[in-house]
């Protein structure tokens, strides 16, 4: 099973920097928003937590699209489905690889973008904490969406349509944690709920994803 994780990480690295690109997109987004919205510091500070979370979500989303598609097109998924590891395991490993190449680097770089967007000083810690708790859920949910849209050409946009509403609770609690943190209010409730969503999604969704893949391979 770790063989699969290692392979996926290696593929991500080889394909021209799987790590770097998720980050780059996040960075660019953080640059584009001030360009679109205007440079006033107060406005930016107000919207920084929301934009940083929406950006993390979109960065995750953008790389989901090909999570299974490549393996499906070149026939690897057929072979994985007949290999002696359960599909649930395959799905979990894929989600983990996705998180390591996307969610984790996003979390680490978010404070830098917080500076760009004028995030209040009190918010930085909560930004990192909430992303650390929340991005695994994004990867797991995204894996489910990718499994559903497997084998559909141009599944990318359909995938977004399916996945984004599923991301709503994570987004809301994540952004709320940062907003409240930045305002010096209590953040225990949103963070707890965020952790709950992540734990629940990681525990249950792999079964749904594996079922979707089995159906799609049929």
């Amino acid at each position, binding site marked *: 099973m770790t063989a699969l994780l290692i392979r996926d990480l290696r593929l991500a690295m080889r394909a021209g920097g799987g790590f770097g690109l998720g980050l780059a997109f996040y960075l660019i987004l953080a640059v584009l928003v001030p360009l679109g919205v205007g440079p006033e510091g107060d406005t930016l500070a107000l919207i920084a937590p929301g934009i940083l979370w929406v950006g993390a979500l979109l960065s995750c989303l953008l790389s989901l699209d090909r999570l299974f598609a490549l393996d499906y097109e070149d026939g690897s998924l057929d072979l994985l489905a007949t290999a002696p590891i359960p599909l649930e395991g395959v799905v979990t490993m894929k989600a983990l690889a996705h998180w390591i190449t996307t969610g984790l680097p996003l979390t680490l770089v978010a404070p830098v973008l917080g500076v760009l967007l004028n995030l209040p000083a009190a918010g930085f810690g909560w930004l990192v904490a909430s992303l650390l708790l929340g991005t695994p859920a994004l990867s797991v949910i995204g894996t*489910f969406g990718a499994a*559903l*849209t497997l084998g*559909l050409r141009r*599944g990318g946009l*359909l995938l977004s*349509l*399916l996945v*984004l*509403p*599923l991301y*709503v*609770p994570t987004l*809301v*609690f994540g952004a*709320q944690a940062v907003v409240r943190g930045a305002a010096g209010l209590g953040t225990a*409730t*949103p963070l707890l*709920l965020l952790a709950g*969503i992540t734990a629940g999604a990681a525990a249950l*969704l792999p079964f*749904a994803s594996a*079922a*979707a893949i089995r*159906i*799609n391979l*049929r």
Partner: protein
Amino acid sequence: MASIWRYANPRKFMETSGWLLPGVSILAALCIATGVIWGFFFTGEDYRQGSTVKIVFLHVPAALMAINAWLMMLVASLIWLIRRHHVSALAAKAAAPVGVTMTLIALITGAVWGQPMWGTWWAWDPRLTSFLILFLFYLGYIALWQAIEDPDTAADLTSVLCLVGSVFALLSRYAVNFWNQGLHQGASLSVVDEGAPMDIAYRLPLYFAMAGFALLFIALLLAGTRTEIRARRMQALLTRERMG
């Protein structure tokens, strides 16, 4: 005792729904007409909201049915996943466009109402927001049905989506509540302005409109399912022809 699953046979379903459909349709038309006409022309104007309050006779039933359609899809999806009755999968498929239309009606009538009430077409109130999210769930569900060619695969995948989506829709509801405690009316039928119970003069026509919308939903659902079954029948005939 004849099992209820009998009706899961497409032929049986076509027979039964064949004579059920006209009756339900007529009843739905009657109820809605009664409720709306009564509500629009024979109730007084609310002292605070003026005549705009009358949109409630469309808004509330549509909003209710929007949620009920999703619940019905959830049940039908479960039946399909567990017992693999094709009619239930097709019924879920047929319910989605009806549900999304109801959601849209609730959103639009709400917006039309909001303009005089709140001075804006749209506000990010929790109830409205969660309806918007429900709308997105409907769109995704319908798009997935349309994107997949093979009907059984589509039924399977959309059912899985419906199950997972329901959980997340519920979560979203709580999340949105947490995010904003808004301007919208309280959740019970009984309030128009704070605390005061809704006047019986409003409530009766509202009940009629609600029953009418429920019947309308059933009628549309039956009609839609019949169409889907006919489409599948066409497909089966083509298959048989191709097999020679």
